[in-house]
């Protein structure tokens, strides 16, 4: 068996603020292989974006501190690597695209300039060569009339085209791994479908590893190979996409699936998850989901559940994981 492309192990991150310490990540671990899509699913505040930012090394310290864990990319630990080495990996090894393309692009430079910048600095290309490559990349992400649009500014692009431009930028240095943080959340459904198709196509051609961060179960079901479900800075369930939708192994996943209005079913009653996601400065004792869990018993309030193995490459952090999964 080959080693995974990216391996995150027992990652702990806390934000030290004036109002106290927020434990944002509490032991996150996952792996991604080349050519594979891992979806990281979670609600706001679950820590899915912070994990990605830690991998990229773009968290501000302070307030963020990595207190424990390892991130291995091709076997090399990034957390202990030098700043120069990390910069080399960014873009070349792992690239990232963000949710809001308008604020991720610099408004005072042309789209072309922002793509060419990395090529000139990192690859030592001339202006002319870099421009030619930028046009190729914009063509690749299917921006019509790329030759003329390369000199335009981000505000002249529509929402979908900005997201395409950002994908082109992330591909400029041929990364082995792409992290997409809610890439379609700000887009309309018809445009969302176009962008997801594009990502899927590019990933297939280049055999890239893809981490797709999202809260949309529909998108997950459509493109992911495996899913990691996050809650309160922890991965509560990790499973193959088919297994997870057929028989969820954690009460949180189960409740999420049941609370979702479906386009293809009507008249179903929506089950709700009671209560609110926990505050990260005051995470509940034991299992962090216990105050909202329909099947919580005494042990859940006192003991943090370990990751139960539910078959090959499938885990659930619930004391009653076997019971939950067999019910589905």
């Amino acid at each position, binding site marked *: 068996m080959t080693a995974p492309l990216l391996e995150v192990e027992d990652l702990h991150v806390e934000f030290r603020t004036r109002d106290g310490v927020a434990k944002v990540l509490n032991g996150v671990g996952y792996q991604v292989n080349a050519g594979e899509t891992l979806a990281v699913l979670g*609600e*706001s505040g679950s820590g899915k974006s912070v994990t990605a930012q830690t991998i990229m090394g773009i968290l501000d310290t302070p307030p963020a501190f990595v207190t424990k864990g390892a991130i291995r990319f091709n076997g090399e630990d990034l957390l202990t690597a030098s700043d120069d080495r990390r910069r080399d990996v960014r873009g070349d090894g792992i690239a990232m695209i963000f949710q809001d393309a308008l604020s991720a692009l610099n408004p005072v430079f042309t789209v072309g300039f922002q793509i060419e910048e990395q090529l000139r600095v990192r690859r030592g290309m001339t202006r002319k060569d870099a421009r030619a490559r930028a046009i190729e990349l914009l063509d690749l992400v299917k921006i*019509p009339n790329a030759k003329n649009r390369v000199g335009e500014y981000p505000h002249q692009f*529509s*929402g*979908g*085209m900005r997201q395409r431009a950002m994908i082109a930028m992330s591909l400029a240095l041929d990364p082995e791994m792409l992290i997409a943080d809610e890439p379609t959340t700000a887009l*309309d*459904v*018809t*445009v*969302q*479908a*176009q962008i*997801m*198709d594009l990502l899927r196509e590019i990933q297939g051609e280049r055999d890239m590893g893809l981490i797709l961060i999202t*809260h*949309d*179960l*529909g*998108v*997950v*079901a*459509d493109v*992911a190979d495996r899913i990691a479900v996050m809650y309160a800075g922890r991965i509560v369930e990790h499973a193959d*996409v*088919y297994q997870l*939708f*057929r028989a969820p192994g954690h009460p949180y996943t189960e*409740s*999420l*699936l049941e*609370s*979702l*209005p*479906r*386009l*293809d079913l*009507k008249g*179903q009653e*929506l*089950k*709700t*998850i009671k209560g*609110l*996601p926990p505050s990260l400065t005051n995470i509940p004792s034991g299992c962090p989901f216990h105050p909202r869990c329909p099947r919580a018993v005494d042990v859940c309030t006192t003991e943090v559940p370990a990751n139960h193995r539910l078959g090959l490459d499938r885990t659930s952090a619930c004391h009653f994981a076997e019971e939950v999964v067999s019910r589905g």
Partner: protein
Amino acid sequence: MAEPILEVTDLVKHFPVRVGVLFKRTIGHVKAVDGVSFTLNKGETLGVVGESGCGKSTLAQVLMRLEPPTSGGATFEGRDMFAMRGAELRRLRRDIQIVLQDPYTSLNPRMTVGDIVGEPFEIHTEVAPKGSRRQKVQELLDTVGLNPEHIHRYPHQFSGGQRQRIGIARALALRPKVIVCDEPVSALDVSIQAQVMNLLGELQSDLGLSYVFIAHDLSVVRHLSDRVAVMYLGKIVETGTEDQIYERPTHPYTQALLSAVPVPDPTQRGTRDVIRLTGDVPSPVDPPSGCHFRTRCWKAQDICATEEPALIVRAGDHPSACHFAEERSVV
């Protein structure tokens, strides 16, 4: 019994586009709402779906009488909404209320929850005489599932879902007949969305409310609506019952929109009939001639560029604004 409460006929709202600093010239119009007609019956939910820029929020503002219409009319309980003045208009403002999208910006951070929910009573004193206000506000908080003891708290002390409940309580204060919901759940997390949707459903059956439910999320609209209108560039392109729109859509745009929504079921991967639209929605300043959708439509013919299709029954059993309307199941 289908008794109409709100009837909208050929409603148009254009915003002028002006250039110049001192001498402003009008160089065109944003055709935000461009001839919309529908009927809302008592106790019913009309879902309005469309992508950003299709005019659904402008429609909400015109229905609230926050913006005057450019032309067209609407009647509320048989009376002309836009001709109302004085006492009659005040009465109308009681009867139609709105729930806004963003629970973070639609509540004044300097006011307590009690003041926010009770503010409508300041203007409409007849609904709650001064002495009974506090009790009324607490009843409202209880109705929407908030702790009545929290009347002195400020909005920042509540989560997104709870804030949306405050917004709903405020809309309910004057016991309205119609509530316009403008994307009420799209800013909320998945696990909170269901709570607010169920609340809206319960309130409707308890209080006999009628909703105009505006959203871009087709699954949410299906769940709550009795009838649905699909909008594209300021026009309704197809309208029918929830079943007709979702099971037997006839307009190509509706079909494309439905097929673009990912279904949370991996076993359907690759088995669904997927229609991919190319390009973006054209600018509402200069919409395409004839049928607005023709620039992205795979069925477009010469006639689509010259003749605007009327919203009439062509195929199936409900109106659709397409020259080549045809039933096709995509869900």
